[in-house]
């Protein structure tokens, strides 16, 4: 059953993304000869004799070693593309503390990523050295003949220039991998407007070239510094293992005067820029192809297509990228396509049930109420956090302030919790919730989620003080992840998990009674963490950046934005287009969900530490749009509500909503929100 589902998902993924990725790789390989030609041309620069320069460069392009280099670099591009495909994420993983970042860097997957990129960088540098010719071409060169008669036998010497080139390639490859991680370049940002792929590529190309050139400059500078200090190690090592001599006549490169060679610097920079440009092109093409819209049919025309139609995909649990594409398609169809909207509003034949609309609206609503719950949890955590900190700071009380009292009646709580689930589930979240769904953002297969995190998915945090008030099984299940990213949780749960953690295997099924020893261990662990967290140096690594944890909460908000837009456009269109009145039945639930979310979001922006303005985004190649998703969410939420109220107007007074919401709705109707 599980296997079949995952097999089907993989087939779906391959079907939707397969061709696109192949095309992206093909284009990046096809663009390689052009880049190589530019590299050869610039590498031979002889500005005083332009004709000869151009003629020489073109002659070189047809030589066998350049063609071999192109083939080799195609393989490199292929490997880089495979890494791009394997490492992409639609929900960025944001390290909340410095330790989390270090943890990410030494994560095995990242180490493999870096190592492979370093090797690939070295390969590209070798190709670049071979194509540059001149003094860079070979690793072993005959030594300068010396005058003294005793060693007249020609000896092979190490060509330090070549070595310098190779090492710089490895360094730049490694730095690329590091920057890829730190800048979250595996994140796939979806564009704010739809454009053709060619236009998007053309728009980004100048930026890409500029970014690569500047970055190459910095990286080469850093490499020179590194080589100045540590350059003798690889030099000696290579010369001893390969039995090469070191030419005493030539000036060694790991000295100040050796590094001040302008030609060396230029060629290294050019090699770095070439490497970065080709790799970034592969990355950019992958991004453009992967985020292109995909047209999911609303109603299947053939029976085999049922798996690919929009309501089915939204309600099943596809890979996140598919879900994102489906929601994007929903947003587009609700906005631009009356024909497909009609299909959404249509009734099933036979039976006359609005299956399409029910499925779509249910999924959107459950997404939104998920977010509501997550925000409530985060706010509660922030409030509790503030309290705990204050007390710890002022009185130096034992760590688990609010948690201590609660620990006692734990068995009772866990029993009661099951009851509360059922009750609160229907009261707050009107829409039927899907029984099994992984939380967004916890894509378990994602390379950056640490293994310990995945094992913790089943663990619940039942004992927080807000526990009885509003809850749904969803929040409960993802309790630990709510206000912090996974790694932050393990390493510094100190402040935030002052409450002991209960473990419940699968909500909805039976709750496992926690063993006493386990809770005791948990408690001890908390105490140790709290003790450590007061030491200054450790605090430096453990302390959370508030901005980062807020970003982590909203990291998958793009989904919610699309759900909001899709839902509100559909509802607005239903005013004129919905013949059977299928939307009317869900209108109260939709309004309820939106208004509740609106309240919670409003409250979130009133929290301390939360800036109310987006930070300035410089127009750089690295996309940081995930940092501002919360502002986009706030704006689109308001717009969605206004879209509905503007179209329905006074008719909304007839909709069944709670008095508070009615008041809120009235404010929207009067344009006073």
């Amino acid at each position: 059953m599980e296997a079949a589902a995952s097999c089907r998902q993989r087939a779906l993924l391959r079907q939707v993304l397969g061709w696109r990725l192949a095309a992206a790789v093909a284009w990046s390989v096809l663009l390689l000869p052009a880049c190589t030609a530019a590299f050869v041309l610039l590498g031979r620069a002889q500005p005083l004799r332009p004709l000869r320069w151009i003629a020489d460069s073109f002659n070189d392009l047809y030589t066998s070693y350049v063609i071999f280099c192109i083939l080799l670099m195609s393989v490199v591009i292929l490997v880089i593309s495979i890494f791009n495909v394997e490492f992409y994420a639609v929900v960025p993983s944001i390290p909340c503390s410095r330790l989390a970042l270090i943890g990410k860097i030494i994560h095995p997957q990242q180490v493999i990523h870096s190592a492979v990129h370093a090797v690939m960088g070295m390969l590209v540098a070798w190709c670049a050295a071979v194509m540059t010719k001149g003094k860079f071409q070979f690793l072993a060169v005959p030594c300068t003949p010396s005058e003294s008669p005793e060693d007249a036998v020609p000896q092979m010497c190490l060509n330090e220039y070549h070595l310098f080139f190779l090492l710089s390639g490895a360094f730049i490859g490694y730095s690329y991998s590091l920057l890829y991680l730190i800048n979250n370049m595996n994140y796939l940002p979806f564009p704010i407007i739809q454009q053709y792929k060619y236009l998007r590529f053309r728009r980004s190309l100048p930026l890409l070239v500029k970014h690569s050139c500047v970055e190459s400059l910095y990286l080469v500078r850093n490499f020179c510094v590194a080589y100045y200090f540590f350059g003798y190690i690889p030099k000696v090592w290579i010369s001893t293992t390969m039995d090469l001599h070191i030419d005493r006549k030539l000036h060694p490169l790991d000295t100040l005067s050796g590094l001040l060679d302008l030609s060396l610097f230029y060629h290294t920079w050019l090699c770095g820029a070439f490497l970065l440009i080709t790799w970034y092109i592969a990355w950019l093409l992958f991004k453009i192809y992967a985020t292109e819209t995909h047209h999911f049919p609303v109603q299947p025309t053939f029976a085999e297509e049922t798996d690919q139609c929009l309501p089915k995909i939204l309600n099943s649990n596809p890979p996140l990228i598919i879900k994102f594409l489906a929601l994007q398609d929903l947003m587009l169809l609700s906005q631009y396509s009356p024909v497909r909207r009609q299909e959404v509003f249509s009734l099933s034949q036979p039976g006359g049930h609005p299956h399409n609309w029910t499925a779509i609206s249910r999924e959107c609503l459950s997404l939104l109420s998920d977010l509501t719950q997550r925000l409530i949890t985060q706010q509660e955590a922030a409030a509790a956090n503030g309290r705990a900190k204050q007390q710890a700071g002022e009185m130096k009380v034992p760590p688990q302030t609010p948690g201590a009292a609660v620990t006692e009646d734990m068995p009772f709580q866990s029993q009661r919790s099951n009851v509360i689930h059922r009750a609160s589930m229907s009261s707050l979240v009107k829409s039927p919730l899907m029984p099994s769904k992984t939380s967004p953002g916890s894509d378990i297969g994602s390379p950056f989620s640490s293994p310990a995190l995945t094992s913790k998915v089943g663990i619940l945090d039942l004992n927080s003080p807000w526990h009885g008030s509003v809850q749904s099984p969803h929040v409960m299940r993802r309790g630990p992840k709510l206000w912090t990213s996974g790694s932050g949780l393990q390493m510094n749960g100190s402040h935030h998990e002052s409450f002991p953690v209960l473990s419940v295997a699968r909500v909805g099924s039976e709750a496992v009674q926690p063993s006493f020893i386990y809770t005791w261990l948990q408690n001890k662990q908390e105490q140790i963490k709290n003790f450590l967290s007061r030491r200054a140096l450790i605090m430096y690594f453990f302390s959370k950046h508030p901005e980062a944890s807020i970003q982590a909460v909203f990291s998958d908000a793009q989904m919610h934005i699309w759900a909001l837009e899709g839902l509100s456009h559909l509802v607005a269109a239903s005013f004129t287009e919905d013949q059977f009145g299928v939307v009317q039945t869900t209108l109260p639930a939709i309004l309820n969900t939106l208004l509740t979310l609106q309240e919670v979001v409003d409250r979130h922006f009133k929290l301390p530490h939360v800036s109310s303005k987006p930070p300035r985004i410089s127009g750089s190649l690295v996309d940081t749009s995930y940092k501002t998703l919360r502002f986009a969410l706030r704006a689109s939420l308001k717009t969605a509500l206004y879209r509905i109220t503007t179209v329905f107007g006074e008719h909304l007074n007839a909709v069944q909503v709670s008095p508070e919401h009615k008041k809120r709705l009235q404010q929207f109707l009067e344009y006073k929100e």
Partner: protein
Amino acid sequence: MCSLGLFPPPPPPGTATLYELNNVLVCGRLCEPLPLAFQSQLAELPTLSLPKDGLKAPGRLEHGTRPAFIHHREALWKRCINAWRDAGLCGLLKEIASAEEEEGLHWLKTASSSALAVCRWLSSLHGSLFPHLSLTSEDMIAAFSQAVDWTGCTVRAFAWHPHTSKFAVALLDDSVRVYNSSSATIPSLKHRLQRNVAAVAWKPLCASILAVACQSCVLVWHLDPTSLSTRPSSGCAQVLSYPGHGPVTSLAWAPSGGLLLSASPVDTAMLVWDVSTENCVQLQWFGGGGVTFLAWSPDGSKVLAATPSAVFRVWEAQMWTCERWPTIKGRCQTGCWSPDGSRLLFTVLGESVIYSLSFSEYRGEMQGQVGGSKTASIVADLSETTFETLYGEERIGGEVHSMVWDPTGERLAAIIRGNPDSPGSQTVVAVFRTRNSPVFELLPWCVAPGGGGNLLRRRGLPGCCPPVGRGGEEGEDAAVLHSSSGAPISPRIAPVLATLPSKTLSLGLPLP
């Protein structure tokens, strides 16, 4: 085709168009009481009152700390670095070229002055291709703004809120005031960067977000509709700036909210802003030398982008591809869309006609196609016509400066600028009755005077005004001035507004 000759003669001087009743515009004296039917609705209208003085264009002083300090002569390299930071390469070259011969850098000086000459020659070459690039930014705004006399008139830009009775007015002193029927407070928006405002636009599907096109950037003001503050802090404004994108002369919000388009005559790209995140996407399309005017069709499917040369483009707003339309005589001055986005009316500088361009109906399935018809047709001829009235001859007609179509598609208002060479011609507002389906019809309806004449001498009296589309118009003692901008009009009601000395403002009313 309809021409000005078919219009009824303009109302006698000294009167103004008061209101529309039973499909007829009623003219009368300013102090006449209105029919009872209107009085309750008028109570909902905000009243514009401008201060008698203080509306002078602010002195354009260079804001900075430099004048406060005693001038100190620095070393050449230091000055060069400063110039490089302040003004880029050109500044650096200028600094070197103007350096005194103290260090004996003869050759450097010569080289930089020749490089500067080359720079100037290149820029003049560029300027000869696109003459507007040699204008100063204020002249450029004045040339491309939708206000008739941008430099001289008090009201530089005006915008009705698309949903409620609320409007924003940009004044000569670079402040923007927001008038709201439901509250007595009139927020006055000022910001360090808010200079030379060319356009204002309210965000649709939103209570109170206003975009202001300034000289160097776009400011997006987030106003709290319930706030009582009369001077919102500049912290309420988001600054959207992009290098090389200024002065901004036109703004257009997507009718579905969210996206904002901004255009500058010096930038060939127009920018699509995701305002909430301040992300922007450049829509580059070379040729034309810039973008002067933007109009987003009410159904959100297409955007008109006019350029300073004799070409305009129509973008399709889903995949953002465009169709290019060369015009014969001059640049496209203004344009407006029918409510369903299937018809574009536009005017061209130097011709006193209104063109119409129809588009195939938008279905959403035809991604990336604009679907315009082959040629534009002339639907109205507004060349100069002489009316024989009881009070003498009146000559009306000329180029259309600004045009708006009300959201129901029943009225079209156009500001007709009089011929500046003939003394008798005046600036008027022509209002047409329109119908878009099944067949497009443009019927002459009335001509409203542009507010000049006796109207102005009635100081202190409540001014009554014609239903000028979405526009406000304004008179001053010497000349007749109009400023117009977007807001829905009510074809049924002519509102009363504005009492101010020597100036009358007329404003439309949103649909009840």
